[in-house]
């Protein structure tokens, strides 16, 4: 029996995370409830000041605030049980390429974040945007959402591996995570806002930021992928 292929290793690690999540539903429930709570806070914050049109204009930004803080919560948890149950040591004892660990974990994080977004975005629409006419380009927000989620999950996986071993790790994750995703966030908010507004020249504000966000994703994922070996071995 030869060594399992890299792809098999990847599938096994990914399946482990997903199976664990299905058993405990820990991440999805906590992230989902947190997203709902942020929406409720928005409700209070916007109750008196903003009417529907204003919220449509701010919608892209508000949506991304929701996503950033929810994923911060999820990413902070993503290595918690590995650490608590000594699972990470077990994985590292297996002679596999460390970057496979990174890819599997990042994929799991992407899936969890996308799952939460699938719930949170319709909720956001339901609470804040249903009163206004929707631009025909509204569905284009899927593209920045996916691009942003991939980058945030990649950077976040790397950083939560680092902060797993630091003191006050939740704060540390936020301190590192938010500056590092900022360029991505900026581009994605611009693209999302353009898609929600759907004005005549929306493509101008949609395509370029999206391309930049993709570029940032590629660079960051490559850097994280290369450096992960060092981080996880320390």
């Amino acid at each position, binding site marked *: 029996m030869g060594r399992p292929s890299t792809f098999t290793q990847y599938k096994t690690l990914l399946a482990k995370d997903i199976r664990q999540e299905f058993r405990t539903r820990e991440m999805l429930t906590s992230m989902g409830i947190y997203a709902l709570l942020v929406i409720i806070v928005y409700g209070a914050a916007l109750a008196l000041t903003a009417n529907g049109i204003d919220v449509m204009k701010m919608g892209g930004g508000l949506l991304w605030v929701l996503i950033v803080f929810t994923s911060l919560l999820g990413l902070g948890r993503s290595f918690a049980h590995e650490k608590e149950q000594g699972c990470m040591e077990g994985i590292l004892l297996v002679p596999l390429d460390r970057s496979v660990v990174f890819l599997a974990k990042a994929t799991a994080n992407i899936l969890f974040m996308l799952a939460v977004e699938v719930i949170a975005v319709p909720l956001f629409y339901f609470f804040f945007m249903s009163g206004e006419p929707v631009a025909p380009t509204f569905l284009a927000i899927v593209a920045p959402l996916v691009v942003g989620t991939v980058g945030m999950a990649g950077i976040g996986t790397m950083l939560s591996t*680092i902060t797993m071993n*630091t003191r006050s790790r939740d704060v540390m994750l936020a*301190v590192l995570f938010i500056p590092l995703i900022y*360029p991505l966030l*900026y581009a994605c908010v611009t693209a999302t806002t353009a898609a929600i507004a759907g004005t005549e020249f929306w493509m101008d504000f949609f395509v370029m930021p999206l391309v930049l966000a993709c570029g940032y994703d590629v660079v*960051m994922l490559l850097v994280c992928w290369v*450096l992960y070996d060092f*981080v996880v071995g320390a």
Partner: protein
Amino acid sequence: MAQRKVNVPEAGQWPDKLAVPALAAGAALTTAGFLMAFLFAAPVNGAALDAPELVGGVMVSHQQLLSQKIFYFHMPVAIVSFIALAFGAYYGVRFLTTREQRFDTCSRVAMEIALLFVVFTMITGDLWTRFEWGVWWTWEPRLTTYLILMLIVIAYFVMRNAVDDPERRATYASVISVIALVDVPICFMITRLIPSSVHPVITREGGMAPDMAATVVVIMLGMMLVGYGLYRLRFREARLAERVQALKEQMED
């Protein structure tokens, strides 16, 4: 890892002899540049006018206000901060490939110098912004990306403080210093990528006149020398502290 002889930087060798002269030369050059900025570089040279006019016996097609004098320090310190960050990342990579703690010390000191120059850039830039744009802060792309750069460098030091194990701290710090470098080209290119950015760009303003360029070059050289001198000085202190620590541990055994 193969036990290969790695040349590690050490304090107390010939570069240290250069540190104090470098600092002195840097001080002299920046002072000279400072004087040049006010006495040599023309006050009227920069943003285009509608039509060339005769001012003080010279035909000018550009005008610049006194606030532009801040530029002569602002740009050089920004460039030096990028260079320092590049060195921080370089030593970070050296640490990751050799596992030699010394490189981590180098990386840390370089990042500290980077933070110092980032703060200089922020101070000079912000005072210019306050006068020229009338606000203390605006979410302009160049300002924003540079603020992010500063936050990453600060996060680097916060993170260092939160890890106890030296080996682990050095690894994480090196990784962050490499990731921080990704923001440098973004910060540098952002005014080209987003043309609506209102941050002045030299090439867009028609390049620099020779007197401006000379002043900038003098201050740039001076700032680089200051940065280098400070780096060596700080590195010597860090090395000495490490040796004291090692001796203390030896005494206790």
